[in-house]
């Protein structure tokens, strides 16, 4: 077999060392050595589009959207939320934006690992990461839209002379929609094009034949920017709380917040893609691929260890160890959150456990939980401590949040049934092609899965 000319890094040094992350598995071209299960994205065909569970999520979506529409077009925030002047940011900003976009950073995490660090094995899960990222970001932006009090002034985004370039929130307001609407869509484009290519219409296929190569040429130039943007705005999300100054408890308040939030986003990105993949396999009866999952877990684990060094080092350097061990509410919260983040990292250092499905699943869940907790706590639980005021989201707030999360789940299930997203062995692809041609007798495919017209 021909070997690709450039398999290895320059200088013969394993890839990744410049970034400080040693390899867990020797880098190998996909066609050599291990045969792993996940080779290709295959759409879920065996299950109907609309199922009872889907209806449940769709129901949440409808109710949540209706309430959000009422809020946006005729209501005041007071009627729909329990936010006060002391706790001015409610669950939409602190949970949907701060916390859930961390889960939605899987595009960034897996993308960097696959395309920059050269972990080619991860390409098979790239689409899953992209779809989940897109859905989490879109719902976060919708939540943001419901949350701002004067959304009609968003057109100021188009007036550069009104931008406050010093503001972290401006960065987020500009970068997140651009990232979601341009880059995530772009990155999710190929799976749509793939479906169009198998469409019946000759005109569409002709269109694809003309434009696809041109767009494809831009891919290596556009996608790196799709990693720069989230790096900027995920760190800006951390920067947001820096401005809250003494109102954030000293265990969390630090000038390092942007960096910590960014790295935590990477961790949650890996964690969420692991959880999504494994849950999808469970639900739609697909085999796992412990090699791929193990690699993701390994990357997550090393990133977390780096994060822990930064986090704990920061607490020590700022002289807050006493607070951490104080055994008051905040000390205990800090310890719990750190444990939730550290335990998966340490457990997943074991190569054996990294390939054990149950350990993978529980540790990834815990990592996501810990990551969300870290990003969420400085905005709420550790915010304005001792102010004598309380905040707990009101029922409409919760319903809208649940609606947004349900949208992610429901939309995800729709997308994986219609597009080739979830990874599966190669044989599944062929089965899917067969299944497809049986379902549409007039729509015949050749052995390669391409539609054939007489």
């Amino acid at each position, binding site marked *: 077999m021909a070997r*690709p*000319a*450039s*398999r290895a890094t*320059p*200088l013969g040094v394993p890839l990744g060392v410049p970034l400080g992350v040693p390899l867990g598995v020797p880098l190998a*071209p996909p066609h050599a050595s291990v045969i792993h299960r996940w080779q*290709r*994205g295959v759409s879920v065909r065996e299950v109907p589009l609309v199922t009872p569970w889907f209806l449940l999520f769709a129901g949440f979506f409808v109710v949540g959207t209706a309430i959000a529409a009422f809020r946006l077009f005729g*209501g*005041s925030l*007071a009627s729909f*939320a329990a*936010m006060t*002047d*002391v706790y*001015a940011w409610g669950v939409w900003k602190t949970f949907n934006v701060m916390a859930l976009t961390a889960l939605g950073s899987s595009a960034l995490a897996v993308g*960097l690992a696959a*395309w*920059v660090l*050269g972990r*080619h094995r991860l*390409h098979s899960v*790239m689409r899953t990461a992209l779809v989940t990222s897109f859905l989490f970001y879109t719902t976060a932006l919708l939540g943001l839209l419901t*949350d*701002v*009090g*004067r*959304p009609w*002034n968003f057109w*100021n985004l188009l007036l550069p002379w*009104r931008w*406050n*370039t*010093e*503001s*972290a*929130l401006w960065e987020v*307001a500009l970068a997140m929609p651009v990232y979601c609407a341009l880059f995530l869509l772009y990155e999710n484009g*190929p799976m749509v094009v*793939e479906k169009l*290519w198998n469409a019946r219409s000759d005109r569409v296929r002709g269109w694809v034949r003309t434009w696809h190569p041109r767009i494809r040429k831009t*891919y*290596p*130039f556009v996608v*790196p920017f799709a*990693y*720069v943007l989230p790096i*900027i705005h995920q760190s800006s999300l951390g920067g*947001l*709380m*820096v*401005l809250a*100054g*003494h109102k954030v408890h000293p265990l969390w308040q630090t*000038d390092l917040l942007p960096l910590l939030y960014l790295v935590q986003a990477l961790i949650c990105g890996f964690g969420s893609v692991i959880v999504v993949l494994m849950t999808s396999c469970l639900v739609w009866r697909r085999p796992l691929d412990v090699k791929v999952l193990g690699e993701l877990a390994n990357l997550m684990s090393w990133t977390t260890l780096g994060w822990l060094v930064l986090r704990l080092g920061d607490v020590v350097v700022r002289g807050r160890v006493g607070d951490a061990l104080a055994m008051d509410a905040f000390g205990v919260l800090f310890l719990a959150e750190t444990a939730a983040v550290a335990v998966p990292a340490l457990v997943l250092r074991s190569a054996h456990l990294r390939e054990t499905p149950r350990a993978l699943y529980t540790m990834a869940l815990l990592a996501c939980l810990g990551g969300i907790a870290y990003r969420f706590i400085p905005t709420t639980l550790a915010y*304005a401590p001792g102010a004598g005021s309380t905040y707990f989201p009101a029922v409409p707030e919760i319903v809208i949040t649940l609606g947004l999360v349900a949208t992610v789940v429901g939309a995800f299930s729709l997308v994986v049934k219609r597009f*080739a997203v979830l990874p599966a062995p190669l044989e599944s*692809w062929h089965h899917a092609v067969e299944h497809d041609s049986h379902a549409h007798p007039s729509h015949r495919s050749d052995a*390669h899965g391409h539609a054939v017209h007489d």
Partner: protein
Amino acid sequence: MILLSRRHLLRTVGTGLSTAAVGGAAAVAAAPAALAAPRTAPADAVGMLYDTTKCIGCKACVAECAKVNDLVPDTELSGGLWQMPADLNTQTKNIIKLWADPATGQTSFVKRQCMHCVDPACVSGCPFNALQKGALGIVGWDGARCIGCRYCEVSCPFEIPKFEWKKFNPKIVKCELCRHVLDRDGQPGCTRVCPTGAVVFGRRTDLLADAKARVAAHPGTYHLDHVYGETEAGGTQVLYLSHVPFEKLGLPALPDRSVPTGLRHGGVALKLIALPVVLYGVFLGFFRRNWKVHEEEAARLKAEKGLEEQL
């Protein structure tokens, strides 16, 4: 044995390094901004000096503020009888509060309103400059730019800006030193009606000198002989003299470093131009190399199994 192609190496590293060089140059240019000196008040900055030892709690300032600013007095707690706000709110830009220590019987009034910081956190955080430090250093709000994100509420260390939660077209409400009538009246409503001169209006430099003179003239009267607002959070244009500890009056202990300083490491040019450019260059370099691997893999897939790539 891995074959190392010098051409590949040079090309990849070269791409990365050249963009890094460009970015680095920009970073060097931006460096002076990164180490910028702390901001100071404008020369004509105006403010107020409030002295708790002179305040009698008559609340004429509260009543007058509502009048001058066309605010409907907040009578919710009193069932319509009195202007009785529990705190600063969207109908109350200025308030008098009372602190009392039941054990010692010591009391103090405190007047709370916007502090008009020298380096305001709210101004730094507002995405579209709806809150701006304008003429005379007064921090004012512009409704045409505000998106209602409430970041100003989150960032203000004194918890001053108030948001009209109950309105469909909500505003941010806070003291603006009556700038809309400053030309006509020469001073804000509260200082104009104060019967004892507990709160006075003037240039910050003059007020600071006056405050220090008072401290010097009455040793042991003022808590810690300290003028609150001289350096707190980078300095505020509203200054306080108190005979009781400031924290008791709700004025938090703040470091001298202004709140936005924590985000100014590196400066905007570094954060928004140099860093992205450098990162992009680095990513691009590695990406293109892995893209070649991917292309070869895709070609192989097509040739052997007749399958298209999946990006």
